[in-house]
Each structure stands twice: as C-alpha cells, then as structure tokens.
C-alpha cells in the first residue's frame, strides 16, 4: 500500500508535468528586454533571416566540447535557429577532451576543441576511424584572446614582457615593485606588496595556450613547458574562467590570465603585452593581426593552425587560443547530420557569423583562413 501511494504520487507528478506542458514554450522571439549588445545581435539575426537562408537544414544537430567558445556557439545557435526554424542545434560546454570523446563515440556530429586533434596521442587516427569512409578535420573557427588580468588599485594598463610574465608566474618576481616591472612601467605607482598568482585549477586550453606563449616568447625564462594543467609551483588555483575572474576581482595584488570576455565583463584590469615591438593593448584588431601571422600546418583538408606566439608584428596581440570545430568531410556522417553540419558551419564561418564574435569578446578569422575553411566545409557530405 506504501507502493501504491507512491505510484499515486508519481501519477500526480506526471499529471502535473502534463498540465505544465500546456503552457511551456520554446518561442522566445521577443525577449522582454535587451542589453546594448543584444540589440545589435537581434538586428543582425533579422538580417540573417531576410537573406535567403541557403544554409538551412532541418533536424537536430548535437555538438559538445570547449567551454571557451560556448558564448559564440550560443549566439550562433540563436541566429541559425532564428533563420531556420526547422533546425535545432545543441552545444554542450563539457570541455575539449570530453568534446572529442563524444565525437568519437558518435554521440555528437561535431566537437569543439581548444587544440587540434593530436596525431601523437592517436586522436587523429581514432577520429579518422570514426569518420570512415571520410576523414576527420580540424576547422579553426573562434580566435579567443587571453588577457593578462590583475588587481592593483591605481595601476591601470601595466605593460608586461613575456620574460616578466614568466618570472611572475614561476615565482621569481615576487613583489609588485620589483625592478623588472617598474622598469617597464616607470610612471605607475606600484606597491611593495607580494604578488599572488592565480591559475586555472581545472585542465584548460587557456592554461595550455598561455604556457605555450610563455614557453615560446619568454626565451628560456619559462622552464615548465606547456600543458592543459598548470605545472609551475606556487600560486593558487581557481576553477574555470569564471572562478579566475572572481578571484582576481575580489583579491588585491593578484595576477592571472583569463579569456578576454571574462576579463571585460568583470571589468578587470588588463595588462598590455610587449613582445618586442612595443606595448599592445588587447583589441579584436590586434588579435586578428596575430591570427593572420599563423600558418596552416594541417595536411589535406585539415586546417590545424600553428600560432606564432613570439610574433613581433607591430600591433599584434600574441596571447590567444583558437578553438576548432572537429567534424567529418567526404562522408562519415549520416545524410541529415551532414546537411546540418554543413549548413550550420557555413553560417558560422560566413561574414555575418564571424562579425558576431567581436561583441562577445572574440576576434573574427582573417579572410584568407576563412575562405579555406569555407572550401573545406563544402566537402562535408
């Protein structure tokens, strides 16, 4: 009789669900209010829908992976679904490693990753096996700058060189008024306080690219290589980009690295970076210049980029990560999924899609790389 009661309770719950079902809606065409950023967003969405949506396909497309591109994906999904009401695109921000594993397990049709498939770890061959008879490709899609963020009251726009950053993050430069820092910032009032460094406590592409930058540009001052996990001793950990932003915001005399959108939205102090050609402030243009300096090293249809972290190109902001979409070309996907992947990625790499990145704190792909990505997307079938 106990069981009966619970059966009754669950029946009541089910009836409740069904009753609720009557009033639920997916229709969010007119958000109740909008910020400055979203007003431009919805305006562009209208233009996207007025342009004949040749990229439209119908059905459900699932993808997962990097958290770094989650905001870009959410925006693109909104625009794509608005233009193509028959399509549903889902993107789970589960981390790059899990994104690749999901793609390999065929639970998703594309994966998002902060780094290209690694041939040495067997990821490339596994992905090619998953895509048989086609092949797996890495498509660079979202260049995301990494800001050097800090919290020192009254000292905005501090300048850092790679060597100084390496010194700070390996603990060799321990005070804010260290001569190495004051030499770069003669006019700033730097306190005699100990520097507290923060790093990501979870594994992340942000840590990987930041340490890769230090390893490439600091010329021997950084001896810990590059890894998705923070390897240097000392410092404190914080979880996720949001955790780092929160830690820096709430604790004085700290420094860390974080994705630009988090730094901007939390109004953190951001450092200028001097790779040898003068201090560069983080702007989308400065990032685009650094992406333009990257070389495509992927073979065949694979468009893996090699970033030049040590670039001395004037006005180029060198600390960035590029997230890739990983999918199959020349077969390997069911027909409906191939149509969706092709349609969605075509929109994403289009001019309209890429321009959305700027407002969200990313940088658009340079035209030259974009056209190559478009050519590969055409081969999705």
């Amino acid at each position, binding site marked *: *009789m*106990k*069981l009966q009661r619970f059966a009754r*309770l669950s029946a009541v719950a089910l009836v409740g669900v069904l009753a609720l079902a009557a009033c639920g809606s997916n229709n969010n065409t007119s958000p*109740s209010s909008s910020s400055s950023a979203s007003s431009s*967003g919805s305006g562009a969405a209208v233009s996207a829908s007025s342009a004949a949506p040749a990229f439209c396909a119908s059905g459900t497309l699932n993808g997962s992976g990097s958290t770094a591109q989650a905001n870009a994906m959410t*925006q693109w999904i*909104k625009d794509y679904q608005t233009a193509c009401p028959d399509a549903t695109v*889902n993107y789970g921000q589960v981390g790059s490693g899990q994104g690749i594993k999901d793609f390999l397990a065929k639970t998703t049709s594309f994966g998002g990753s902060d780094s290209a498939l690694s041939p040495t770890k067997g990821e490339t061959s596994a992905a090619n096996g998953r895509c048989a008879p086609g092949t797996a490709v890495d498509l660079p899609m979202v260049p995301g700058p990494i800001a050097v963020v800090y919290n020192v009251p009254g000292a905005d726009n501090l300048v850092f060189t790679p060597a100084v950053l390496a010194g700070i993050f390996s603990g060799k430069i321990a005070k804010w008024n260290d001569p190495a820092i004051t030499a770069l910032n003669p006019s700033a009032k730097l306190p005699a306080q100990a520097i507290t460094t923060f790093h990501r406590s979870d594994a992340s592409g942000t840590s990987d690219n930041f340490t890769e930058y230090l390893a490439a540009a600091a010329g021997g001052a950084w001896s810990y290589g590059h890894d998705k996990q923070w390897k240097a001793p000392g410092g404190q950990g914080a979880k996720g980009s949001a955790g780092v932003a929160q830690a820096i915001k709430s604790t004085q005399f700290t420094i860390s690295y974080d994705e630009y959108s988090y730094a901007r939205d939390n109004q953190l102090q951001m450092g200028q970076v001097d790779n040898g050609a003068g201090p560069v402030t983080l702007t989308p243009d400065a990032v685009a210049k650094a992406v333009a300096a990257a070389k495509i090293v992927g073979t065949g249809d694979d468009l893996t980029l090699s970033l030049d972290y040590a670039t001395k190109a004037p006005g180029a902001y060198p600390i960035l990560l590029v997230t890739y979409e990983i999918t199959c070309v020349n077969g390997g996907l069911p027909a409906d999924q191939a149509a969706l992947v092709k349609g969605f990625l075509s929109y994403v790499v289009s001019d309209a899609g890429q321009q959305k990145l700027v407002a969200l704190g990313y940088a658009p792909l340079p035209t030259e790389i974009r056209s190559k990505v478009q050519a590969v997307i055409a081969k999705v079938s």
Partner: protein
Amino acid sequence: MSILKTPVPGASTLSGTSTLSGARLRRGTLALVAVGAIAVTGLLETFTPVSGWAGSVLMAAAVYLVGQTVISFLVEGRRHALDRLVTTAVYAAFALAMLPLGAVLFKVVQRGGGLINGTFLTHSLRNIGPTDTGGGVYHGIVGTLEQAALASLISIPLAMLTAIYLVEYGRGWFARLVTFFVDVMTGVPSIVAGLFIFTVWVLMLGLNRSGFAATLALTILMIPIVVRSTEEMLKLVPDSLREASYALGVPKWRTILKVVVPTAVPGIVTGIMLGVARVMGETAPLLLLNGFTSSINFDPFSGPQAALPLIVWDQAGRPNPQSITRAWGSALVLIVMVLLLNLGARALARLSRTR
C-alpha cells in the same frame, strides 16, 4: 532569550524536572546575563579583530553560555548548571544549523528572485543569445521532474524491497554481503556513477544521450540512501508488533506490508526525501549523460534533455551578468521545486499516519 525559562509544563516530553529543588534562577537574571554577554562582546570586539555579523553573534552566544553556566552553578548547583548549559547549547546548535539555511535561501532569493515571472517559468532558453535577457527554465523543470520521477520509480521499489529483505528475511552470508555492498554503493562518487553509465550506455550499447541515461545514474545514487534509511527505520519497529501480528495468524508478507512498513513510514519518507533531494540537485552525472539543449524535450528516452542543475552549472560558468543572474534564478526554481516535493511527501506521511 525568554525561551530559556525553566520547566514549561507540557511543552516537552522531558519536562518532568522536579520543582521541589532548591534555589532557581529567575528569568530576569538570565536576561541580565544576555545583556551582559552582548556588552562583553562589544568590548571584546574592540580588542580583537573579530569582524562580520556572524563572528559577533557567535561570540555573544559563547559569552552568554559561560556567564549563564557560572551563575547557575553558584545559585543552583552543579546538576542544574549542567542542565542549563546543555539546554542552551542545544538551542544554539539548532540556531547554528538554521544559519546557513537562512543565508543560502536569502542569497538565492536576493540574486534570483527578480527573475521569477510567468515567462521564466514557461519558456525555454531556445534562441536566447549570450547577452540577451529573457527566456526561462521550463525545459529544465520538465527534465528535472521527469528524471527524478523516473529515478524514484525505479529505485524506491528496489531499495525498499532490499531493505525489507535485510531486516525481515536476511540471515547468514547473503544478507551480510548485501549490507556490505549497500555500504559500498553509498561510496560511489556521483561522477563515477555517471562514468559507469556513460561507458555502458553510450560506448558499449551505442545508445544516445538522453534524460533516461541520466536517470540510470541517478538511480544508482538514490538506491543506497533509501536502503540505508529504510533499513534503519524498519529495525526500529518493535518486534512485539510483529509477534502480535504473527500470533493472530497473519502471514509474514502481510505483516510486513500492513504492520511493519506503515509503522516506519514517517522515517522511510524522510529517507526517500533525502534521496530525491540529492538526485534532483545532482550535477556531475548529468554533465556526461543528459546531452545539452536549450529547447524543450518532453521525451526522456530520446534526444538531449535539459535539467535545472545543468542550467545552473552552464549559466554560472559564463562571463555575462545576464547568464549569472539566470543561474541564480534557476537555482531558486530548483530549491522551490525540492521544497514543494518535500511538502508533498510530508503531507503524505501525515495522511498515512492518521489512517
């Protein structure tokens, strides 16, 4: 502090303390001690850097405790001093336990309360851009309700039958083995349960992610909680009840269903509530198994299905203030849902007791 007055007739099962004893403290004295404690705390705070209202309250309580005990010891003697000390400590313990509840609820309502309206409860997050406001968590409400209901549907019968087996039938090595493995099951970290189902469901069986896949992981987490608490409660049913039933010629299974289980129902319901509460708020396995969607999906058996904890986790990890606010709003909805469920279970338990 007037609640500290001595014997309250009929207020408690333990109120039979003798009034024939000697000198007792008056309420006025205790109030004086309380005022004194606050004053001393004020003084102490000027010397020590105890900051924050929480620190002050704790300090004042500690000072009051000491003052009251000393005075009571001098006036009433050791036994009553000890009694007062324990009474105050027990009241303080309860207040201390309520402190985080108040703080959590306040924070969630403060940050998320402004978001709750008809739109938020009846719309999904489909086509809501990262910096848009609006949208809602309807898709998560649907998912969480369906997944929790399914997990309960599977785990409650299994768990209760197991508990009944352990208490009423269990003899020898098999019962010991089951007890042991229920303990083992309590130790399964939620993320490991998620990994296990992911490997079996997705990698081995080649099935897609869905609300039901998450339900399976939640079932693993819910079973041991319900078994342990049900077992504990069944053991507390006096054997005399069983004896009486057997003596009347009632078969064992009817004795269990009609006598033993109903006697233990309030405790069992508490255990089940704890289980459901844990299941509804569980995040880690959902990350691996639900898939992710911003759209409504009524069918837990096919396609990605959202859930409220997942929405909290997803939105809290984004940089935009609009998303963070949505995270708190979803958290509020989740808490309210669990609260309603608890209320329902309570009412049910009361109903079953009066019958």
